[in-house]
């Protein structure tokens, strides 16, 4: 997964650089390992590196009125930092995964990016004019969103026909447009439009920007939708809209559903920061059991689940989650987290809470069990690492040391999102993915 961004300002007196930096900062939660921003103006410049946006994008002399950028979680060892170059002239930022390209024979022996480059070289002749670019992405299959720009400063942005990964459009007055993975970007760098911050880009839709025009085209007509469930559970920011659904509303509904499905008598509700906080608040509102701040953070806020290895993840959790003993001492605690992948970090939290005097700990998870590795690039580890695939709830409770443990049901989750089952990709919970 990644956070992607494209900014198109018609008037070349604008410098899009700072907009790009703050826009990517607003997407930082979608990838904290690498950041890259390419600017197109009188010349082409790219700033990139490993680390957070504020550590990497520190240039003071980068200029251009068009830009494309991305933040990504742990990349393969030698993988190119996004946005990647497709042929030296076309750069692209991609969220999710392209699994095949119609008319191209995928080569399992070479890297993902290399396959894309070869497919592009085979299929797009004259260095990527607008039609070539649109055609290429319309032949890509998988679960992805993209922003791409060519040498003529033409930019296209769109979503694969399944609509797995999100993408929205925002505006900057009479000056241009912004496309980004999430609508929160528009609050941070866009025009503050009072009604809704951004317009949803539909699956199979492509947004085209050229020096002379901006318009939308529908390149795929497939009706099959597979909106990523995990966006609502964990990936997206709560102040974003994904597929026109406010993420915060879903997270609140999940909290209520957890009450319906797993109510238990207790003294306090505690959410695991940051993602699970709205679940816990809603759970508390619904039951009347007070919600408390259970943890204090040391150092910078990181998304511990997206760290590349177990040591990093535990480091993240321990620094992020120092238990406030006064909140739990002698109390029966309902501990709410968004999801459980391997269960190690959860075990750590439960242990720390018991150590600080919690009398009982009832774990409630705001999503169904994760049983499958995502082919569309959500960072889920191999299936033999997934605790939910191998152990039942009762056993997991024993393993993590909790008094009870309960997942949200798949039906409960679908209800909370408020969409029809057939429009959601529930693959991480069911192992069944849409055909690409």
């Amino acid at each position, binding site marked *: 997964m990644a956070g992607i961004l494209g900014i198109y300002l018609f008037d070349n007196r604008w410098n899009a650089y700072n907009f790009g930096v703050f826009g990517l900062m607003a997407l930082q939660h979608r990838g904290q390992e690498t950041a890259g921003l390419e600017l197109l103006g009188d010349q082409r410049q790219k700033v990139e590196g490993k680390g957070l946006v504020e550590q990497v994008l520190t240039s003071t002399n980068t200029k251009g009125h068009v830009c494309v950028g991305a933040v990504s979680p742990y990349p393969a060892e030698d993988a190119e930092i996004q946005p990647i170059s497709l042929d030296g002239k076309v750069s692209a930022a991609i969220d999710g995964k392209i699994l095949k390209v119609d008319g191209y024979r995928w080569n399992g022996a070479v890297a993902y990016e290399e396959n894309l480059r070869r497919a592009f070289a085979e299929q797009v002749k004259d260095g990527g004019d607008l039609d070539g670019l649109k055609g290429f992405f319309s032949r890509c299959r998988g679960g992805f969103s993209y922003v791409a720009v060519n040498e003529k400063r033409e930019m296209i942005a769109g979503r694969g026909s399944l609509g797995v990964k999100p993408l929205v*459009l925002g505006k900057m007055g009479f*000056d241009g447009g912004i496309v980004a993975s999430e609508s929160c970007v528009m609050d941070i760098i866009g025009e503050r439009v009072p009604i809704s911050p951004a317009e949803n880009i539909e699956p199979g839709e492509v947004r085209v920007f050229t020096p002379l025009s901006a318009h939308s085209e529908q390149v795929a007509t497939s009706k099959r939708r597979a909106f990523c469930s995990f966006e609502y559970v964990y990936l997206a920011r709560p102040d974003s809209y994904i597929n026109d659904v406010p993420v915060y509303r879903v997270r609140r509904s999940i909290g209520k559903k957890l009450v319906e499905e797993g109510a238990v008598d207790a003294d306090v509700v505690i959410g695991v920061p940051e993602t699970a906080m709205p679940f816990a608040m809603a759970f508390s509102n619904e039951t009347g059991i007070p919600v408390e701040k259970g943890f204090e953070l040391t150092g910078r806020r990181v998304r511990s689940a997206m760290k590349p290895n177990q040591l990093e993840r535990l480091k993240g959790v321990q620094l992020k989650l120092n238990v406030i003993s006064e909140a739990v001492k002698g109390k029966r605690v309902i501990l709410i987290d968004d999801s459980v992948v391997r269960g190690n970090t959860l075990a750590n939290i439960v242990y720390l809470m018991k150590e600080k005097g919690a009398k009982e700990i009832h774990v409630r998870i705001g999503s169904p069990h994760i049983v499958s590795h995502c082919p569309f690039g959500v960072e889920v580890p191999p299936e033999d690492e997934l605790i939910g695939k191998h152990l039942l709830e009762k056993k997991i409770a024993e393993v993590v040391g909790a008094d009870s443990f309960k997942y949200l049901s798949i039906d409960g989750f679908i209800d909370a999102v408020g969409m029809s089952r057939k429009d959601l990709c529930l693959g991480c919970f069911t192992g069944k993915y849409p055909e690409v």
Partner: protein
Amino acid sequence: MMDMKILLVGGAGREHAIAAAFSRSGHEPRLYCLSDLVNPGIKEFVKRSGGEYYLGNINDPEGVVKAAKKSRADFVFVGPEEPNFHGVPDRLEDGGIPCIGANRAVSELEMSKASMRDLQWKYKIPGRLWYKKFKTFEEAVPYIEEYADSVALKPARQAGGKGVKVIEDFQVYLQEDKRKVKREHAESIVREYMKGYDDIDYKLLIEERVWGPEYTVQCFTDGRTVIPMPAVQDNKHAFEGDLGLETGGMGSISCGMNLRWGVDDGRAILTDEEYRKSVEIVKMMIDSIQKETGEKYHGVVAGQMMLTSVWGPTVIEMYSRLGDPEAGNVLSVLKTDIVDICEAIIGERLNTIKAEFEDRAVVVKAVCPEGYPNRRDMASGHPVKIRGNGDGILWASADVREGRIVSGGSRVVECLGVGESIPEASGRAERLTEKVSLEDGWKLFHRRDIGSEKSMERRIALANMAREIYQYRERRGLLGKRMIWIPGKGLVEVG
């Protein structure tokens, strides 16, 4: 009157709509037209009525008087604003030729955006925005440097709707970039957009930026009576979804007097009260300019308004003529004979006319060659073809050269759909756009979203939002008031 003759000045989409209205008159006037381009649509009406089409400079009063005399016109109808600014109506009246068109003095309402605001503040007319005017760029610099906020930068003179830039400057972490562009744009307003306009002292106007749905209230007036027309909403952004460059208008919607969703649909962008207040504001503007100049206003006046959270109905700009494309919306549903209205204006007895408008939804969509609005050189000179009989299509920026119709660089045609609801009318207009093409394969574009259900929902939601805030202010007696606490200095009140 037997064998009535009318000279129409101007040759854009608006004038085509005016010509169409004249052609429906029971007086069966002979229509003459003076324009700098040959508008194929107007030419057809002229031909059918037995009149004549003159090519010439519409801003040259002598030339217009000459054309009026040659055609022996009973009266002249001036379409666009520039002839007003050049005193065309004044010279016609001096020569004893009645004219529908704001004279030089009263058209100041539109020509000088600075004078318009001065007037509004002097007479304490509601819906006035905070502003500052500058004669030179240098004068404006310290102000732009010091005062960082969301502003609209405008040429102080009406310059064909060009040069306006709205910069929302709220996010302090982006302030430096925005300030730089503000400064550079202010400079280009003074040095480029205002170049060649030496009929005005002030060059640059900086106004507070406001948000809300925009709408135009156009009125006929004889200086005493005002006949308001249905409110129309224009769409200024070049591209779909209100994205991109500012244009003269990509399309406009109307239904009933207050921008209702449909003829039998209660949802509306404006309340009756807001519409009434807007008309009241336009009346006050007319009264004040007449008082200020001592001259009579004969013609059309329009308030380009916005429903803002600060004031409710708020004046953005004033027009001394019909809007384009807004003219198509109102004239196509005008039931009253337009010649009767014109004669009543000339005789200053507009109070005797009861103007009626059909209760229909109208959507006008402008179709433009790619390149518009910033690269008109690329947009012009392409041969245009219309399939079918051309009903519902108004010719705008087009010219007839060597027997062929070619694009003029701006909006080439306006497609007008009528229906029971705005989305229905939008669908009709949409189908008309499919009949238009450029024979050399150059691309045309228009906005499919104008008048769509989604767009209507958004406009109504935006209006509700602005309404909630301005009504709250109204209840507290804070309408139009702005208070700023400046630490160390105290409370400053504007409004």
